[in-house]
């Protein structure tokens, strides 16, 4: 069993868009990868709904696990993807974090 602990890099966390990119990347792999976040999970990395139940926000530590031949290479790739700020690569997300701080509590 191989394992990687990764900090979620996307500014908005592992939400619908980032989760979808990640799930799609995990789907076409020869090994089954699971993701856990704190007490939540593990869920299959290829399951969009499963990933969403984790509620992993930006900066959350998640644990990726996989078994079998090629597991390490797959985990390395998926960890790198998860650590990236995928939201910054979204044209509409340029000012994430600057908006909405003055709202009611």
């Amino acid at each position, binding site marked *: 069993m191989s394992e990687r602990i990764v900090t979620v890099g996307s500014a908005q966390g592992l939400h619908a868009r980032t989760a979808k990119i990640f799930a799609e990347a995990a789907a076409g792999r020869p090994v089954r990868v699971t993701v856990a976040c704190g007490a939540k999970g593990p869920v299959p990395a290829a399951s969009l709904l499963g990933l969403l139940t984790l509620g992993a926000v930006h900066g959350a530590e998640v644990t990726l696990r996989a078994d079998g031949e090629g597991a390490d290479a797959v985990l390395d790739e998926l960890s790198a993807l998860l650590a990236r700020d995928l939201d910054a690569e979204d044209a509409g997300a340029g*000012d994430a974090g600057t908006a909405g701080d003055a709202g009611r509590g």
Partner: protein
Amino acid sequence: MAESAARLLDPRAIRLDARAADRDDAIRQCGRVLAEAGAVTAAYTESMLEREQSVSTHLGEGVAIPHGTAGGKDAVLRDALAVLRFPGGVDWNGHPVTLCIAIAARGDGHMAILAELAEVLLDPGRARRLREAGTAADVIRQLQPTEEEPTR
């Protein structure tokens, strides 16, 4: 503490018998209902369409969750949900969608809502009951974390 999905859903923001010509029409209707509920300005609809072009918000189980881009947060006046059901179905990039749960959220509140919704959809029985809910109150009930003990 994040509010639960059911608390963010005003019964007036639920439409059980909507019809849409296509995906973008369905998203525009979602934006209108959120705006009528006082949750967003009209600009939010464009933000939702932009998000959809970037990555589909189709979740599976016949459900899509239209929401805006991070840049669209300025159009959000308060966190809220809207539920629009399309009994005739809407073609969502090749996937049939009968239920749209539109999300307006400024901060991380939307992560908690998504997590809660995903739990419902992962349970085939709960997902079916949500899709087949007959009244607005029924929709809200299906989104409650537990059904056994009605707390009010």
